[in-house]
């Protein structure tokens, strides 16, 4: 399956889901005063947000908008 065949809606759903997951994890990491909070932020929250942003940008470039 080519990227352009996947609907824009599906891309947006996945990217916004990842962004929301990452942001919720970021809130937890900010409220949790523990050495592991930085690990939670850097490896899970920032990665999820980054992946969500990347998917959104990919959808803008490769997925044609519906007529």
């Amino acid at each position, binding site marked *: 399956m080519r990227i352009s065949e996947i609907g824009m809606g599906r891309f947006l759903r996945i990217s916004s889901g990842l*962004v929301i997951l990452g942001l919720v994890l970021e809130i937890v990491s900010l409220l949790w005063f523990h050495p592991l909070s930085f690990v939670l932020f850097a490896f899970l929250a*920032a990665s999820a947000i980054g992946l969500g*942003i990347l998917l959104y940008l990919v959808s803008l470039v490769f997925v044609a908008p519906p007529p």
Partner: protein
Amino acid sequence: MIAVLICQIVLSIVLASVFLIRPSLTHALGWKLLAFIGLFLLPAMCVVGGMNTHIQRSEQTRFCISCHVMIPYGQSLYLEDPAHIPAQHFQNHRVPVDTACYSCHADYTIYGPLKDKLQGLKRIYAQYVSTPPDPAAIRIAGGFKNAQCLHCHLGARNFEENAVHAALLDSLKSEQTSCLTSGCHDTAHDIANLSHLKFWRPAQ
């Protein structure tokens, strides 16, 4: 500061939720712009803000001693004997009390804070995945550098007017003579003997 960042994150979550529930909204131009803000600009700003907050937090003394192996090092800041260099600096506010550990153990170079964070991640790995070290056996990789002392003391009148310091200044700058291990200021945290030593109790 954290409250502002959390408000920004909540706003970003609300915006992203709109596109999770109704992605078809992005057909209209106004919603397209809102999607760009909610799925790119705001989350990117949240990551930058979060990284900044976490880095600032990791400079705090209470963050450093939140690790089990660092607790005795935090206690050593309250030793009564002024010959203990960290305790003397901490108790007399020669270093900021809130960032006491960072003031002496930060690598004052362009990539220093990044190297410190990587060292911190190695310690977290040792604590949770590998074998946690004995607190008394912890040593700074490469030894304690004079540059960390000279960062504050160099140029200070009471430092430069001291005859020994003046005579050894070049040697101290080039790290040939160590401030700590040359025998002049050799009592640092002394974790192994902590239970036998007297502690200072602050009035408050």
